[in-house]
């Protein structure tokens, strides 16, 4: 290790690739590494550099891996991978601890019940064990008794799995939410879906590289939002004076998160009032005539009062905001001084490239639709929808194969739908990288999972999913298999990444993709016919041939290549860097991927596929949806305050619990180390999980303000009870200087619950009261009223 060069930086610095020491010495870490490696820490042999793609989260950053004597010894970022251009977050740095973890599951195994010992079996037996059951269910027309839950992001594996389930029986694949679903839904309602000749999936995209002014409503930008490697790099560029301009970041939120304290300004506010704050800013833009008149006049509808085809009058957004969201009212709701709202609004509207993000957009708390509508209304007021530096929805073509039918089943991020299927007595549950469930489900729901007769896990580590499984089909680590990536969350460009395995698989572990292909062959010839590829390289090659034929995009290269490619495409030319499918395949693998560096930011979109053809402050699709849901057929049946439900508005977040009984509001969040669930088993990540100094031992904690602590006689590191209407759990207290009184921060994740370093503790999910969005009927928040007192 080149210790002399190492610069250990704290996570609070927002640095990429740093490690906070906490109470662990360098010597201690060194011993830890040696303990993790089965052989000597000195690896004689040839040094090589290889490339891979991270799958520690759904971001999929490009990696550069140094190996010595066939062992991986260091992971850094790949400078040629467009998403992260050489930077990686601490999770990727900890990847080697996954590869060489002493609790790796290295062979398939089976047991009759979770409390029985495991029996090691062959892969053929393992696949057949599952295939036999799936075949039986299919023959009995009970395909719906198979439930698959995944924690992977979008990518070929997810696409293959989803396709398999679709063909098998029209089953949806339940996957970890990206956190963007609510915002995506809001933008779809107001701006419409992107239309292309291919139809299919789409996703949210921000052009933050060109943003001048960012209003962030609660998103943990520096703690895993979107694609960590990309976002962290962008954050650095925002502050890069050599660019000639600095991007301003204003963070609205109730906690002094890493993202809040590193922003240019943290605007503390009451929990659950993002929508109100956004509408307060809208009030200033409208009252002071600062909004983008050209965009609003030519490309939006519903701004002024209007009359529909049935003759019913509707209040326009302008009058709605001016009457309902006056500054004094908003200030009262949010706790934000009026002067702050005015100043921020004026700065926001002072030029192009202003964008509003939020609300929250975290996998476990994607936010409410009403807040999201208000925030997108802000983007419309400054003309940033579909414009450079702004936000839009883009087609998400992904990998061409397996082909997704336009009407096919899309992966579902809805926890509620998944829980409702548990009521239908599934017989088989497959947990694919699904440790995130243990952050969001309480004991009662987890017990429902445990009662399923066959629980299959693909986890490569002993984790919470292996503890309840009866069949283990251990996947490889990312370095031991073909790694594939695609356009990650909120990334503005279309991208497909591909690298060859860096290492041979440890033990008998096998890539889940290969197992799926084998399962397709073993389950039913009709299914096998839809998946004709004999192995993963064959599937990847077939994909590559399709991409090569698309006639756009480029293979990965240096940033100077990117600039030239953009110049070419801007003028209507495409200078391909391959001449044949064979050449494309060769370079696709060696250069690490293909992408299209010219996307929507190059030209503004001013036409929207909504019923009106415009951006709709009053969403006609939402109107139609709510009418259908309410059984309303005629305008005369509409209640007088109908418009209030459709227009962007603020709604009270917390359920009606007596605030005198539970005085504090607990706001869960996901630290970077555990964002999206999983990875608790890695010592490096446990050591840096607390940004405010290292933890004493691997324990979860809660954060409260000095005032709240003093009032309760609590000092830092005291053990406390955290009690809600559902029960209570123990946590260690952290007292944060500058934190808002009345708000308690609680990180999700925590110490490993299985394996040799298990530290059993109560799950936060036991006391959280999930809040569902009334329109989308999915979980939007887990903010909960609590009391805290010393143990």
């Amino acid at each position, binding site marked *: 290790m080149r210790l002399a060069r190492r610069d250990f930086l704290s996570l609070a610095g927002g640095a990429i690739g740093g490690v906070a020491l906490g109470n662990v010495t360098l010597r201690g870490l060194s011993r830890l590494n040696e303990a993790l490696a089965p052989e000597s820490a000195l690896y004689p042999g040839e040094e090589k550099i290889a490339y891979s793609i991270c799958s520690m989260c759904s971001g999929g950053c490009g990696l550069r891996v140094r190996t010595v004597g066939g062992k991986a010894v260091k992971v850094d970022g790949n400078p040629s991978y467009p998403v992260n251009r050489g930077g990686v977050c601490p999770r990727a740095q900890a990847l080697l601890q996954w590869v060489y973890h002493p609790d790796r599951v290295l062979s398939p195994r089976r047991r009759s019940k979770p409390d029985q010992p495991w029996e090691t079996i062959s892969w053929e037996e393992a696949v057949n064990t599952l295939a036999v059951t799936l075949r039986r269910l299919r023959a009995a027309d009970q395909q719906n008794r198979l439930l698959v839950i995944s924690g992977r992001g979008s990518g070929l594996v997810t696409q293959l799995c989803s396709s398999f389930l679709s063909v098998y029986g029209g089953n949806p694949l339940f996957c970890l939410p990206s956190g963007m679903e609510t915002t995506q839904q809001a933008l779809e309602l107001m701006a*419409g879906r992107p239309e292309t000749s291919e139809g299919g999936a789409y996703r949210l995209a921000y052009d933050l590289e060109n943003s001048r002014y960012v209003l962030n409503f609660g998103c943990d930008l520096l703690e895993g939002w979107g694609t960590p490697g990309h976002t962290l790099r962008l954050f650095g560029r925002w502050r890069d004076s050599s660019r000639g301009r600095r991007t301003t970041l204003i963070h609205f939120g109730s906690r002094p998160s890493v993202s809040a304290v590193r922003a240019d300004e943290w605007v503390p506010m009451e929990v659950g009032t993002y929508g109100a704050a956004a509408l307060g800013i809208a009030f200033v833009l409208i009252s002071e005539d600062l909004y983008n008149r050209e965009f609003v006049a030519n490309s939006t509808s519903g701004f002024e009062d209007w009359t529909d085809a049935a003759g019913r009058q509707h209040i326009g957004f302008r009058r709605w905001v001016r009457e309902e969201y006056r500054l004094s009212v908003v200030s009262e709701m949010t706790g934000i001084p009026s002067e702050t709202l005015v100043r921020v609004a004026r700065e926001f509207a002072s030029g192009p490239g202003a964008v509003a993000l939020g609300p929250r957009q975290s996998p476990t708390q994607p936010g409410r639709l009403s807040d999201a509508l208000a925030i997108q209304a802000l983007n419309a007021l400054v003309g940033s929808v579909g414009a450079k530096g702004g936000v839009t929805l883009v087609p998400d073509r992904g990998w061409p194969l397996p082909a997704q039918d336009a009407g096919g089943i899309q992966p579902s991020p809805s926890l509620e739908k998944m829980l409702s299927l548990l009521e239908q007595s599934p017989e088989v549950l497959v947990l694919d990288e699904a440790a995130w469930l243990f952050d969001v489900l309480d004991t009662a729901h987890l017990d429902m999972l445990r009662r399923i007769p066959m629980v299959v896990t693909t986890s490569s580590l002993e984790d919470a999913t292996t503890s309840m499984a009866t069949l283990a089909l251990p996947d490889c680590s990312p370095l031991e298999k073909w790694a594939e990536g695609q356009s990650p969350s909120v990334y503005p460009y279309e991208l497909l990444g591909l690298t060859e395995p860096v290492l041979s698989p440890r033990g008998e572990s096998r890539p889940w993709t290969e197992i799926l292909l084998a399962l397709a062959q073993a389950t039913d010839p009709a299914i096998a016919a839809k998946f004709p590829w004999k192995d993963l390289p064959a599937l990847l090659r077939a994909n590559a041939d399709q991409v090569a034929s698309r006639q756009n995009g480029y293979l990965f290269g240096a940033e*100077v290549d990117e600039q030239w490619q953009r110049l070419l495409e*801007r003028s209507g030319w495409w200078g391909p860097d391959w001449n044949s499918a064979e050449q494309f395949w060769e370079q696709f693998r060696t250069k690490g991927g293909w992408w299209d560096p010219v996307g929507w930011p190059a*030209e503004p979109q001013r*036409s*929207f596929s909504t019923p009106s053809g415009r951006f709709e402050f009053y969403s006609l699709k939402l109107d139609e949806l709510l009418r259908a849901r309410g059984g309303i057929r005629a305008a005369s049946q509409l209640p007088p305050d109908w418009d209030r439900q459709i227009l962007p508005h603020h709604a009270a977040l917390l359920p009606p619990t007596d605030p005198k009984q539970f005085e504090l509001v607990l706001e869960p969040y996901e630290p970077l180390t555990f964002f999206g669930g999983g990875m608790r088993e890695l010592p490096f990540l446990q050591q840096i999980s607390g940004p405010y100094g290292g933890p004493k031992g691997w324990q979860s904690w809660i954060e409260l303000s000095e005032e709240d602590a003093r009032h309760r006689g609590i000092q830092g590191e005291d053990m406390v009870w955290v009690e809600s209407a559902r029960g209570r759990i123990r946590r260690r207290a952290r007292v944060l200087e500058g934190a808002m009184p009345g708000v308690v921060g609680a990180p999700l994740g925590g110490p490993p619950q299985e394996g040799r370093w298990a530290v059993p503790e109560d799950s936060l999910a036991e006391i959280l009261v999930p809040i569902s969005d009334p329109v989308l009927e999915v979980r939007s928040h887990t903010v909960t009223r609590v009391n805290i007192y010393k143990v």
Partner: protein
Amino acid sequence: MVFREKGCAGCHAVLGEGGKLGPDLSRTLSTGNPLELAAAMWSHAPQMWQRMQQENFQLPTFTTEEMEVMFAFLAMVRSFDEPGNAEAGREVFQSKGCAECHAIRGQGGRVGPDLAAVASLRNPVAWVAAMWNHAPGMFRALREKGREFPRFQGAEMVDLQSYIRLRAGGLAQDRSYLLPASADQGAALFQTKQCVRCHGVGGRGGTIGPDLSSVVLPRRYGEIAAFMWNHAPQMNRQAAAESIPYPRLEAQELANILAYLNSLSMRWVGNPVTGATTFATKGCAGCHAITPGEKSPGPNLTALKQELTPVSMAAIMWNHGPRMLQRMESSSIPWPVFNSRELADTITFLERLRRRSSQTPPSTSSRGTP
């Protein structure tokens, strides 16, 4: 890559991207002819060197190959069309009467196709090809409506394209491009599409239309395409009169033909006799001997090993120039400024001398005519 690696981009932008210390090299008046570029570089060099010194930029050196690649890059970017202005395009769409026949997303006329269907075409050449092939139908429709044939000036075609993409919204997301054009393939198409039956090149070919080697064409592809479009009715009439079928052109074919036409402006001719005079009047003879074996303060120019072309001249000047300038300034000799005509003549003159002295047979790649 050379343009970036040598640091040129630190001072000079192309298409608006890059440094601001010097002019944007895609937007100056030059056509991209290597002679013009070399002359501009030569004349401008002392200012560049002085500025680079002030900014503490390291002075790069170039091999001839690197200079050739960079010249090709600069010639290419000058031919690129700038992104259009959708607002201006709206004006074009209305003033040319396009909406009478064409809808965009269903709003507009129904005589011709809905233009949202072609919103994915990113290159103005592709647009013009689509319009060109469509023209015979348009002629009929315009006659029936009593409308004048729409002609386009300057960037109007590009602006119109930009407006239609804006209105087409998501339908413009499926982008289609053209491959970089090939002048060689264009030369072949010029024959096979029978363009040569009407238009001669360098005195060879038809005389019905102008000789295209002597016509000053716009340098941007979109503008050349619009130029061609404007002549479509006349060409159509002449073609019919000569029983020449109206040529249908795929977008890539049109691009290649335009590349060929563009390349005609890259040719140059120099006069060695005038070059000799220029060599003397510019004061070059004061430092550089041109008689084999003769000594001089500067190198004897007959001893140069490499062929003299605008590209090699630019490389030699750039690499050698700072020392030249220093010696000239110390002797109070002003830096000689060349226009492209003078440089062409001088290069031709010197190349003839060089070849005579080395008795090297003329290279087939030489563009100059001794």
